[in-house]
C-alpha cells in the first residue's frame, strides 16, 4: 500500500465513523420526537374539559331552604330536584327514559357544582344563574372528537337522542371547552371526567420528601466516612462492591423487602407515602453514595494537604474544605437519584400504593397514590377519558423529571469551583 492509499483509508475511516455517529443521533432524536408527538397528541386534550352552559333555577319549593340558611343546612340540602328541573328546561325530555339519558350527558358532579355555586353566593334562592356544568365523559370525548359517531346506535355508548341534544347544544353555543381544573385538584375517580392527579402529586411529593430526608444525610455521611476516614482494607473493599451492586438491584426487589419488613414485620400503614418514602430511600441510598464518593475522590489531595499543613485536624480538613468542594457533584447526583425515585413504579405497587384512592392525602400516613402508579392504573382502564389522562399524566411526570434534571445541571455549573 502506498502512502497516499494509507492516508486515504485513514480519512475515509474517520468519515465513516462521523457518519455512524450522526446517524445514531438522528435515529435517537426521531424516536424522542415520535414519543413526544404521540403523548402530546393523545394527552393534550386532557387539560381541557367540556362544559355545558345551563340555566339553573334555585326553586325555593324544591330546595326546602329558608333565606339565609346556614352553611350546614345548605350542605345537607338536596339539590337533585333543582338540577333535574333545570336540565329539563334546557332540553325538553318527554318521558323518564329520555330524562335519564339527558342527565347522563352531565357528570356525576353536576349536582355538587350547582350546590357549590349556591354556597359561594347565598342569595340565590329563587334566582336564576347560568352555570358551566361539567359534561359526562361520553360527551367530553365526543366534543373533543375522540368518539366515532358514525357507528350504528347499538354499538355506541351515546344514543341517538343524546346525539340530538348534543347537536342542539352545539348549535346554540351552549357547549364549550374550559381549563380542566378537576384534573389538577381532584383525586382518582371512577368517572374519567372527574378523575385528577391532585392526590397522586401530593402522594409523590410526600414520598420524595421522605426519601430525601432519609437517604441524603445517610448517604453523604456514609460516603464521607468511607472515602476519607475508613481504613482501606478488605472489609471496605467488600462494602464498596456491595454498594455498587445494590445500585443495580432491580427496584421490585426493594418492594419485596419493604413488603416483608415494613408492612409485615413493623406493620406500618399500607399504601402510604411514608412506606413509599422509606422504600425509595433504600433504593436511592447507593445511587447517591456513588456520585458522592466520586465527587469526594475528585477533590485533589493537594487541598487536603494544604489544610493539614496549616494545622487543621483531619476532621477540619474534610468538613471545611473537601466536603464543600464535593457538594455540587453530590447535590446533582442526589437530584438525579430522586428523579429516578419519582418515576419508580414497581416497588410502590408491591407496597399497595396501587389502591384506588379518591381522597387527597393530608399527611404521609394517609393512603395515597403516586404519579407513576396513577399512570399505570389509568393505562389499564378502558374508558376513552382515561386514555388521554394517562398521556397527560406522563407529560406531567416527564415535566417534573426534566425540571429536576435541569436543576441538577444548573446547581453543578453554578457552584462548581475550579482548582488547578
Amino acid at each position: 500500500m502506498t502512502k497516499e492509499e494509507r492516508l486515504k483509508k485513514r480519512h475515509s475511516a474517520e468519515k465513516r465513523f462521523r457518519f455512524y455517529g450522526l446517524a445514531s443521533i438522528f435515529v435517537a432524536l426521531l424516536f424522542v420526537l415520535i414519543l413526544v408527538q404521540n403523548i402530546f397528541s393523545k394527552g393534550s386534550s386532557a387539560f381541557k374539559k367540556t362544559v355545558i352552559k345551563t340555566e339553573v333555577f334555585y326553586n325555593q319549593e324544591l330546595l326546602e331552604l329558608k333565606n339565609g340558611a346556614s352553611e350546614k343546612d345548605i350542605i345537607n340540602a338536596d339539590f337533585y330536584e333543582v338540577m333535574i328541573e333545570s336540565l329539563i328546561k334546557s332540553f325538553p325530555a318527554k318521558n323518564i327514559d329520555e330524562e335519564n339519558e339527558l342527565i347522563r350527558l352531565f357528570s356525576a358532579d353536576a349536582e355538587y357544582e350547582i350546590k357549590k355555586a349556591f354556597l359561594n353566593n347565598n342569595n340565590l334562592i329563587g334566582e336564576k344563574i347560568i352555570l358551566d356544568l361539567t359534561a359526562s365523559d361520553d360527551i367530553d370525548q365526543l366534543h373533543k372528537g375522540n368518539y366515532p359517531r358514525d357507528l350504528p346506535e347499538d354499538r355506541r355508548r351515546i344514543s341517538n337522542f343524546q346525539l340530538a341534544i348534543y347537536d342542539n347544544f352545539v348549535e346554540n353555543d351552549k357547549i364549550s371547552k374550559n381549563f380542566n381544573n378537576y384534573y389538577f385538584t381532584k383525586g382518582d375517580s371512577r368517572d374519567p371526567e372527574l378523575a385528577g392527579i391532585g392526590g397522586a402529586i401530593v402522594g409523590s411529593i410526600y414520598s420524595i420528601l421522605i426519601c430525601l430526608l432519609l437517604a441524603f444525610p445517610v448517604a453523604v455521611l456514609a460516603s464521607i466516612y468511607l472515602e476519607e476516614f475508613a481504613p482501606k482494607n478488605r472489609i471496605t473493599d467488600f462494602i464498596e462492591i456491595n454498594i455498587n451492586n445494590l445500585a443495580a438491584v432491580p427496584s421490585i426487589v426493594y418492594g419485596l423487602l419493604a413488603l416483608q419488613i415494613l408492612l409485615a414485620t413493623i406493620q406500618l400503614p399500607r399504601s402510604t407515602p411514608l412506606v413509599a418514602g422509606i422504600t425509595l430511600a433504600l433504593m436511592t441510598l447507593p445511587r447517591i453514595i456513588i456520585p458522592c464518593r466520586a465527587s469526594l475522590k475528585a477533590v485533589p489531595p493537594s487541598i487536603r494537604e494544604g489544610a493539614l499543613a496549616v494545622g487543621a485536624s483531619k476532621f477540619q480538613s474534610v468538613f471545611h474544605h473537601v466536603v464543600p468542594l464535593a457538594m455540587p457533584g453530590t447535590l446533582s447526583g442526589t437530584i438525579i437519584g430522586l428523579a429516578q425515585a419519582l418515576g419508580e413504579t414497581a416497588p410502590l405497587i408491591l407496597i399497595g400504593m396501587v389502591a384506588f384512592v379518591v381522597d387527597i392525602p393530608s399527611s404521609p400516613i394517609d393512603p395515597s397514590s403516586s404519579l407513576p402508579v396513577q399512570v399505570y392504573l389509568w393505562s389499564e382502564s378502558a374508558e376513552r377519558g382515561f386514555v388521554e389522562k394517562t398521556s397527560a399524566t406522563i407529560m406531567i411526570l416527564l415535566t417534573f423529571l426534566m425540571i429536576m434534571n435541569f436543576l441538577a445541571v444548573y446547581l453543578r455549573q453554578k457552584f462548581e469551583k475550579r482548582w488547578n
Partner: protein
Amino acid sequence: MNKVKIKSKNLNVHYGQKQALFDVNLDLNEKEVTALIGPSGCGKSTFIRCINRMNDVIDICKVTGNIEIDGVEVNDENLDVVSLRERVGMVFQKPNPFPKSIYENISYGPKIHGKGDTKSELDEIVENSLKKSALWEEVKDRLDEPGTSLSGGQQQRLCIARAISVNPEVILMDEPCSALDPIATAKIEELIDDLKKTYTIVIVTHSMAQAVRVSQKTGFFHLGKLIEVGKTEKIFKNPDNKMTQDYITGRFG
C-alpha cells in the same frame, strides 16, 4: 553559627517494603536556610515531610528513629500533630491555594487555632502575612477574589503567606519554584532571603543555582542516604565526597 533547631537521629522511613530513608542524621540551624539537593526519588521530600509528620497521611508509610525540634521528639505517638503543624508550616511543589477568597485562604489557619478572635485582629494577621510574603501590594484591593484567580507565582506566595499566618517557627518548602517561571522564582527567592530572619527554612530544590543563591547549608541526598552536608559554599566549591562532586557538576542526576 546559629543554634540547632531540628535534629534527626538515625531516621529511617519505609513505604511498605521499600525503604526510602536510611539512617539520616542531619542538624538544621535556627534562622537559616538549609537546602536539600539530590536526584529525583532520593528521599529529600520524604525527609522534610517527617518534620511536620505529613507522612502520617500515607497509610503504608512507617517512620522510625528520632527527629527533634528544640529537643522535643516529633516522632512521638502522643504528640499532637495539630500543634506540631502550627509550629512547622509547609509550602508544596504545586501552589495549592484553597478555592476560596484570598482573605479566607490566609485567615483559615489563625481561625482554627483560635488566633485573631475579632475581625480587626484577623484583618491585621492577613495584612501582615501578605506583606511578609510580598504579595500585599498586588492583592490588597481584591482580597475577596478567589485565590485560584492569581498567577502561579502569586499563588505560591499566597501559600507562603498562608503558612506564615499561623506564625510558625519552621517553614518547609518542597520544590516551591519548580512550577514557576524565572521571574516568579526570583521573587520567591528574594522572599526566602527575607523570611530567614524570622524563620528556620528547609528547602528542597532541583536547582543547584537556587541552592547556592538562597541557602547557608546544603545537604546532598542519594538513594535515601544523606551523602554529605555542610556549608553551601563548601559543598559547591569543594565537596568531600566524589558523588557530590559528580552531581553538582552535572555528571549524573
